[in-house]
């Protein structure tokens, strides 16, 4: 099934923001997921890496990836993203698909105020802000999401953040927390959605084991350029096995702050 399908002639242009600066939890797996699921369907993918000091016109991309990093990397990204912010906002209004994780998600908001240290400005793409907590959510997470084209689906991953994110009125949550802590551990929701801009705390990396969500991002990206598209279904048995295993873990660890501390000694 891995052989290349007939070329559809369609191409997705991806802008990968800070690929070396923000790649803390192997989130390049998200890019692999998008690339391979396109390739297996005969859809071309062009990836441009975007580093600090570069200010491309973000409306030229169909999809933008913006991943996670520790506080020190985030500080650099926060300063730099100010020079990219207006073009990023234009891209968001022009329905470019954004997939942002953790620090990337926080930096698409208004600001991130760490538990200690100065406030980091965001890009104001998403109507939300984040405040650092003195404890860390480090555990398996599962969300229930609903999208018109996909129906109700479960998104699984691993969260590892001390930031508490609070959503404003212009964004909707990505999903309802089934297990884990989500945006702030209080309001029972995780992530944010505005137009085609998606933000989430789910690492894992999350796209490989949530093939339905990868396909949603691919479809939205293609439709922006080519109009209504129906993706060829793939054999997702490997991915779904990983999804179901992660979901089981999330439910087993429900209520724990840190999965490691809660791990029973087991074979």
């Amino acid at each position, binding site marked *: 099934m891995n052989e290349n399908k007939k070329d559809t002639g369609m191409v997705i242009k991806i802008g990968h923001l800070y690929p070396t600066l923000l790649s803390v939890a*192997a989130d390049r*797996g998200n890019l692999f997921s998008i690339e391979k699921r396109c390739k297996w369907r005969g859809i071309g993918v062009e990836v441009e890496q975007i580093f600090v000091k570069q200010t491309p016109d973000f409306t030229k991309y169909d999809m933008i990836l913006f991943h996670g990093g520790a506080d020190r990397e985030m500080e650099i990204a926060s300063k730099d993203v100010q020079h990219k912010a207006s073009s990023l906002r234009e891209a968001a209004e022009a329905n470019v698909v954004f997939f942002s994780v953790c620090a990337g998600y926080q930096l698409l908001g208004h600001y991130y105020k760490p538990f200690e240290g100065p406030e980091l400005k965001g890009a104001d793409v998403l109507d939300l802000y984040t405040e650092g907590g003195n404890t860390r959510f480090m555990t398996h997470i599962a969300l229930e999401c609903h999208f018109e084209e996909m129906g109700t689906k479960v998104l699984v991953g691993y969260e590892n953040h001390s930031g508490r994110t609070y959503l404003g009125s212009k964004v909707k949550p990505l999903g309802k927390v089934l297990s884990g802590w989500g945006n702030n551990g209080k309001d029972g929701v995780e992530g944010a959605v505005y137009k085609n801009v998606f933000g989430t705390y789910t690492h894992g990396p999350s796209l*490989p084991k949530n093939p339905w969500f990868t396909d949603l991002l691919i479809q939205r990206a293609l439709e922006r350029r080519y109009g209504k598209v129906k993706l060829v279904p793939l054999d997702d048995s490997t991915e779904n096995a990983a999804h179901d*295993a992660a979901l089981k873990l999330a439910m087993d660890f429900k209520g724990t702050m840190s999965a*490691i501390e809660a791990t029973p000694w087991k074979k």
Partner: protein
Amino acid sequence: MLTDNSNNDSTASTGLRKARLAFAISAGKLAGASGRFFHIGGGTSLPGMIARRIDPNVLKSVVGASKAKKIVITGSNGKTTTARMTAAIADASGHRVSQNRTGSNLLQGVTSVAVNFADVLGRLDSDVLLFEIDEATIPLAVPEIQPDVVVITNIFRDQLDRYGELYSVARALNTMLEELPETATILLNGNDPQVASFGANAKAKRVFFGLETTEVGTPVPEQSADIVRCIRCHHDLDYKVAYMSHLGIYSCPNCSYTLPDLDIAATSVGLAENGEGPSHIKLRTPQGEIKLEIPLPGIHNVYNAAAAIGAAMAVGFPLDKVQTAMNNVRTAFGRMEKIQAGDKTIFLSFVKNPTSFNLMLRLIALHPGKKHLLLAASHTVVDGEDFAWLWDVDIEEIAADILDAVCSGNKPEELAMRLKYAEVPTDRITLIQDREAALDAAMKQVEPGGTLYIMSSYTPTQELRRIMQKRGWVKHFWEE
């Protein structure tokens, strides 16, 4: 009062303390012996756990009373082999060594040194105490041990699910180093931009080891490298050469931060082309140049040797027996361990982060022919819960050479998916959680005279090795 460790010198409480210490050590020894007798494990951390329950000061008391040189080895990768090499050097020059040999490097395992090697009165008959300690255990263990030498091998992104982030581990290590007395020696990997910055304000003497050659390495650090920015000003570092992950010869184009002068430097490194044979190095040391053959393959073992030699020098051991010592070093349990299983060969590698996994993949890639693999990952308190790091492993580099792969452990699904996205055909990937069934299935796929490569996280490595012990392919690891 029973856990009071203040200086109460009344005879009664001294007697009580001694009695408790003796009881703690005896109970720990008994636990270790029965663990070995009943084959319920290597008996490596249980003695320490039991002894600490009875006397929380057991490690501090025993180590504090000992005149032995105390060496602590920590860092993400290379602890076990560096400790083995250091022990071999000490041994070759006639020193008696006690160490926590088997990678049991959390507080209980470290405490086992005191329990296993001391007599019931807490007396240690050793010249060197060698402690291999997990990075996160350092803040707890170092005050109890009061080491003469601390070796930091490297800090890679490791166990984010345990530590939260890389920098918090680094901060804790740095704090520990700054508290060491001026009589201590800190041995740091100079090629690691972060580790090289440690202890800048320490009272203890800093000694740097590393590589200083362009015969090996790549022009830029690999994707999974963590620290590619300046520790001081956060500007991107320039690399003249990168050896593994972010280790290399670096300088910051923005500020003055650069590789420190190396006290112990491999100025020439010749690695075996077949990925299996010895490396030949020239090592510059304050005592002159040494030419060495290191029997264990790979660039990481050059670092381990340099660190071990640095540690041996710091406690005053002569270097004339280093080659003899190196010849006596065998691969540690599960470190590219070559195992004969009838007419088939197994290479067993314990991998725990992208750096160690990538190192093993690169060594394997040098072996001729297509490869049969057995990969295993388990989520446990030891192995961690988050296996995202598998996506930083460059499976793609050997994907075309993979004939077949069995994925095992209690988390085989992520491994299988990682292989699929490296475009290993799914009909060549088998998922078998049960370790013994997985080993059988993988061995069945190997032709007579062929080789199986096992790469596995900690717990499944132990489990697989136990199965191989049962079959007589390897010895119990506590017998080594």
